[in-house]
């Protein structure tokens, strides 16, 4: 085993690997920054390119695209308030505020550093603890996923309590939207009203574009023409760089989010979107100045950004150790492996140990490369956004539509526009739409895992839960206790104070 590890090092001593990784990072950043274009799409499109390259070049290339893409999504989230991917939604809470305060550069750099550091740590952990992680993953089944999702939701809800009623309404609305389409357990179609466009449910990208991009465009259009032409995201006042002391304040958040992200990465079906939200909420909870969150707090960038990147490491584990892809990204990577005749699985470490270790090491190094590349490319990317709105808005509009069209039909466009219109109205009415998106994303997993758990339980749910699945019961009990504390806590504390007085 150790030999393979050393042999892996040898395979890395070629400059062309780093060239391809860098290319992937740049392409990924570019694609991720466009609203509506997902990194999955970019990877799927570039997959054939990787076929012509040997595995040692092609696979790090694709992974570079992926990593670059996550960060690209953050760029547009911070600069124009439009998340490029689902994982960057939580970055829109503080990112645009920081940009408005002239601190765009600080925000971008914080995002870059938190992302790469968290990704680095998570990848290192994956490399050294791959056996342990594989074991843990096999222990996580539907009941565990269900309870972890519920627990995460409670955490997120406990932190966004000041959205109050409107937040809850948005969440239930999102839940309802999430159930439109085909029920995966029985195959029945729900709430589609016979409209073809809805028969598969509302796809995530049109939803994100509708909820975030279109209202941004509409709001940007509101102000008068005269001041408008000269209005642009002024990068010259993007501010100074991130100062060390500012970064140091967030180190704990980054580490905490890394742990959160790595943990969530081991839970199949949860993913980066949830990790980002949980990272943000945890950061807010632990912060000494929670009231600044949402108004331009750098910690509010570090929290989600670190978490959503830390997910990357563990998601590779089922792929490498079992040959099972956990999501679209790993499915594409599996395709890249298979096309070269390599089938990941239990034997891969004995048969192709050196290659796998080399790949894992290359992934770790990619993070380091990314810090430098990202730092250098920040300014040009941001400058590209600095165009007059009269140019920028039509381009963003066109790209949003193209993004939806690339994996959908023209009827998806209609869905997107309708959602956008409603989102715009709701925003005017002071609704915070982030709960809507996260409820939407989690609607199906919650129902699905609950149904599966009930099937496994064969009707006797309590015995199943507490006897056979202790991990799940731990999370659920913790969640229930938390809710109880949230509701009754103040009352209990008040009583205690009275007694003492």
């Amino acid at each position, binding site marked *: 085993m150790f030999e393979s590890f050393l042999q892996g090092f040898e395979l890395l001593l070629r400059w062309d690997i780093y060239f391809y990784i860098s290319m992937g990072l740049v392409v990924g950043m570019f694609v991720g920054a466009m609203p509506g274009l997902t990194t999955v799409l970019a*990877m*799927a499109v570039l997959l054939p390119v990787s076929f012509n390259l040997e595995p040692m070049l092609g696979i790090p290339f694709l992974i570079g695209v992926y990593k670059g893409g996550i960060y690209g999504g953050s760029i547009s989230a911070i600069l124009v308030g439009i998340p490029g991917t689902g994982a960057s939604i939580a970055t829109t809470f503080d990112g645009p505020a920081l940009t408005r305060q002239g601190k765009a550069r600080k925000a971008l750099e914080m995002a870059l550093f938190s992302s790469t550091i968290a990704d680095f740590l998570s990848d290192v952990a994956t490399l050294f603890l791959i056996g342990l992680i594989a074991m843990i993953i096999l*222990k996580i089944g539907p009941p565990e996923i269900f309870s972890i999702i519920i627990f995460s939701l409670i955490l997120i809800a406990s932190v966004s309590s000041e959205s109050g009623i409107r937040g809850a309404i948005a969440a239930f609305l999102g839940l309802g939207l999430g159930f439109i389409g085909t029920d995966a357990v029985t*195959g029945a179609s729900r709430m589609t009203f016979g409209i073809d466009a809805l*028969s598969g449910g509302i796809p995530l990208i049109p939803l994100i574009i509708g909820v975030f991009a279109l209202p941004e465009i509409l709001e940007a259009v509101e102000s008068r023409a005269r001041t408008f032409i000269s209005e642009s995201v002024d990068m010259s006042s993007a501010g100074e760089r991130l100062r060390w002391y500012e970064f140091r304040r967030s180190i704990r958040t980054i580490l905490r989010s890394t742990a959160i992200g790595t943990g969530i990465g081991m839970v199949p079906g949860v993913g980066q979107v949830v990790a980002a939200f949980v990272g943000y909420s945890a950061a807010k909870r632990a912060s000494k100045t929670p009231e600044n969150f949402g108004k331009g707090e750098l910690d509010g960038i570090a929290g989600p950004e670190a978490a959503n990147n830390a997910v990357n490491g563990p998601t590779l584990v089922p792929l490498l150790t079992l*040959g099972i892809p956990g999501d679209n990204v790993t*499915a594409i990577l599996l395709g890249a492996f298979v096309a070269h005749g390599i089938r990941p699985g239990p034997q891969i470490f004995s048969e192709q140990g050196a290659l796998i270790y080399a790949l894992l090491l290359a992934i770790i190094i990619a993070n380091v490369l990314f810090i430098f590349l990202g730092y250098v490319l920040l300014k040009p990317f941001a400058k590209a956004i600095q165009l007059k709105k009269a140019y920028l808005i039509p381009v963003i509009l066109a790209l949003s539509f193209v993004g939806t069209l690339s994996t959908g039909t023209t009827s998806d466009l209609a869905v997107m526009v309708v959602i956008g219109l409603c989102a715009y109205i709701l925003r005017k009415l002071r609704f915070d739409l982030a709960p809507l998106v996260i409820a939407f994303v989690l609607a199906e997993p919650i129902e699905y895992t609950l149904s599966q758990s009930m*099937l*496994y339980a064969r009707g006797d749910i309590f015995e199943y839960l507490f006897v056979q699945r202790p991990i799940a019961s731990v999370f659920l009990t913790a969640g229930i206790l938390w809710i109880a504390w949230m509701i009754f806590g103040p009352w209990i504390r008040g009583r205690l104070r009275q007694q003492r007085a």
Partner: protein
Amino acid sequence: MKNIRYLWILALAAVIGAPLPAAAEYPDRPITLIIPLGPGGSHDLHARGITGIISDILGQPMVVRLVPGAGGMKGTSEAAKAKADGYTLLFTHNAFDQLKPQTVDVNFNTLQDFKTVARINFAAPILVARADQPYKTFEEFVAYAKANPGKVNMGHSGVWGPAHIPASQLIKETGIKVNLIPHKGGGPALQALLAGEDQVTWIFATQTRPHYLDGKVRVLAVAGDTPLANDKDFKDVPTMAALGYSGVAFTMDRIFMAPAGMNDADLKKLRDAFEELMDHKSFQRFITSIGEEVMFMRGEEYDKLRPGRYESYTDLIKSVSGK
């Protein structure tokens, strides 16, 4: 206005610059290949190898377009509604073609709106059990399931998917009662099996092989009537037909479809091109490298099979959904 003039100049240049064909010969521009599945699956993989070579044969690129959703019906519907000029094709499988449209309301008629171009190959699902289970053969499994109704967890990759169908056929034929657990795809189903949550599942040979070699799973049977003769690990696995359950016959045919209104000459050209593709050495090498085989059937022959299959699935659906 100047900008309009620019537009005309550009258009004029484009029209002059491009060679104007006298009679447009099919194909004279890229062909879109719709795959009604998500990225990274076996169809995507096959398509990558196929499109590269067939583009050379036809002279125009074939471009993959992934349209997942609605259990495969979204992409299928898009292909059905596309112009029948031969520039939009569909790469799908028989469950999406002959079975799924019967279970949900779709805006196309699958038998009438599509003609088969070719069948590339098929994959036969195999019944796989954990090695730690007390049954070692298929008969033992059936006996065990009959003695312990509802105790065995049989996972599948999704309702009306290529694992659910043989599972339903099996239940119908043997009358056993198992706990059918849905999963979101073949990957999670395999993972549940390996984790011990499921005891048996239907899956494909390529994904199973590493775990079989690792000693974690046993292969009990293969659906259909064709044994996996060329498979070095699974060539002795009994077929369902040989075991006496010929009703458990679902195999996943990977088929290329074209809209039915396409003109016959172009369709023939397409069909011939695919037949030519099968003889290409690089194609054969590609298919072998991804662990599959080439099992070609011409479109016309496959079209003869479709109505019969369609009806057999109607019965199956009735028995499972009780409607």
